[in-house]
């Protein structure tokens, strides 16, 4: 016992020291204000929510339709973003071609543009009279604007950059020698990509998917500009929320709460599980 007590004391003082580690007070105050800044709007929303009518509003066909459409389009957009975004990220990270910086800027521009601008640009290109849209219409009898597909296109346009940047950063950081090792074991480039590269960057890939999906779920400006606001076809949750604000504020608040709940649940769930958000799993 006498031999153990000094080390036990050392352990305790060490954990106390770590536990006591603090931000400088001014920084701590600012950090707490920042947390409050994010928390207060939700508290206000919860306080203002017409809890007595929640059940009735949730039962409304228009709400259910908007919710279904939102989930359907945002998940589709996330899937499309993965299919095209991962190869794009791989190209940006691994292939040294002239104008790479330009291409990267082009492909992530929509992230910093006002979404409405993106919608206008999509309309000018893929609208029925647009530069390319007219041929889609004439040759294939295929129209994007004011269709559900148009909603997905608008969402992909604004959300894919989040996935591309996340995945590209992970590809740049990963130890490429693992890919080399796989090749010396006889793996083709595709086998290396699917069996070594992708599993290695899985946390970043999942983070990218979640970010892109969340962005697509909340997409408003490009959608309403390019796809319009037709219930059942292009009226997603954010659009329905905005419109309800003018006619039925209670419904708007409930719609907003639904969106918040979905997004928050996914972020919390995925971060802890896959992204090492609260844990320390880094290997």
């Amino acid at each position, binding site marked *: 016992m006498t031999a153990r007590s000094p080390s036990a004391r050392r352990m305790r003082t060490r954990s106390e020291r770590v536990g006591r580690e603090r931000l400088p007070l001014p920084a701590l105050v600012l950090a707490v204000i920042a947390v409050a800044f994010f928390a207060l709007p939700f508290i206000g929303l919860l306080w203002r929510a017409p809890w007595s009518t929640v059940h009735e509003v949730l039962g409304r066909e228009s709400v259910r339709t908007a919710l279904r459409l939102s989930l359907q389009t945002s998940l589709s957009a996330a899937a499309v973003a993965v299919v095209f975004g991962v190869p794009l990220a791989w190209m940006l990270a691994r292939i040294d071609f002239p104008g790479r910086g330009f291409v990267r800027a082009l492909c992530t521009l929509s992230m910093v543009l006002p979404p409405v601008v993106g919608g206008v640009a999509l309309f000018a290109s893929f609208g029925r009279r647009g530069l390319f849209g007219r041929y889609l219409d004439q040759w294939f009898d295929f129209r994007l604007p004011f269709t559900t597909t148009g909603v997905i296109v608008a969402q992909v346009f604004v959300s894919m950059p989040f996935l591309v940047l996340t995945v590209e950063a992970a590809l740049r950081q990963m130890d490429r020698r693992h890919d080399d090792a796989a090749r010396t074991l*006889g793996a083709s480039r595709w086998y290396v990509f699917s069996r070594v590269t992708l599993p290695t960057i899985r946390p970043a890939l999942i983070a990218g998917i979640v970010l892109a999906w969340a962005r697509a779920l909340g997409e408003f400006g490009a959608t309403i500009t390019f796809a319009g606001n037709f219930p059942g076809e292009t009226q997603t949750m954010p659009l329905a929320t905005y419109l309800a604000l003018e006619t039925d504020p209670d419904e708007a608040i409930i719609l907003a709460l639904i969106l918040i709940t979905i997004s928050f649940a996914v972020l919390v769930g995925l971060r802890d599980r896959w992204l090492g958000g609260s844990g320390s799993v880094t290997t």
Partner: protein
Amino acid sequence: MSLDAQVGVRLGEFDLDAAISVEAGEVLAVLGPNGSGKTTLLRAIAGLVPIDAGRISIDDTVLDEPDTAVFVPPEHRPVGVVFQDYLLFEHLNALDNTAFGLRAGGVDRREARRRARVLLDGFGLAAHTRSRPHMLSGGQAQRVALARALAIEPQVLLLDEPLAALDVGTRRQVRRDLRRHLADFDGVRILVTHDPVDAYALADRVAILEAGRVVQTGTIAHVTAHPRSRYVADLVGTNLVTGDISNNRLTTSTGAVVSVVAEFTGPAFAIVRPRSITLSHAPIDTSARNTFTGVVDDVDRLGDRIRVGVDGALHLTAEITAAALDTLDLRPGDTITATVKATDIETYPA
């Protein structure tokens, strides 16, 4: 079966131009300081770095030859590699790491795992097939890396600093195990290392690589007995003097003259063994033909032996006993005279 590699690679300022040839059943150690191009040489043989000039072939099969535009990509070369740090796939357990090459080659999962299990058994890892790489010790990880490389039944096995990732405590045991496992593989084996102890323990022959050039090849006994570069001389702890011999006098490029006993003339190497050097405060009257006065620049204790660096017309390292050091009371900066008999200096043509 034999591997012939004439490797010319330019990487920015660095320029590798090295030729090695290894027979099946032989273990060649490529020994050189950091940055000498060892790993690049290995990567070129594996196909991870295309060569700019030269030719790499196994028997009559050319793997890389820029002149004829032949380049076999790494996945089609019969070459297995054990990388520095092993580079096991963290998302796969030991069994699937070992089975990876077979799976990539189209063997179905069950058969690949069966063969991988047999291999891991042979490496004493039967209990660790389900372990992820981070759960393995350094020695176990190395054996998995070896099993993974051998699973594809390569003709050539390359090992890049296979012991560098281990701590000193386990290195000896792992080195002994590695030696046994290497003996079981009968193809061409090339080992890259900066540690002469690894080369001694594991290789039949060494190639000394310095600044991208092979400066010496041969059996370890021969190379260490007759170093042809400062690097090797330092590794074996002896003094190497280069110069021209005529009339039993070796003249260095800086003009220092060493009396030797030599039956040839022309460019030569001379070995001055640290133990054959006598140190004294004043020039002594002796039959020894060589006395050099210089300044002590280094006093290094190795057990009960002391190595003293003397910088004069030549830089020489002398080895004396601790008792002799006490008597001489040497400190860096002192002036000292080094004496060595001509007959104690071994010479051979450069």
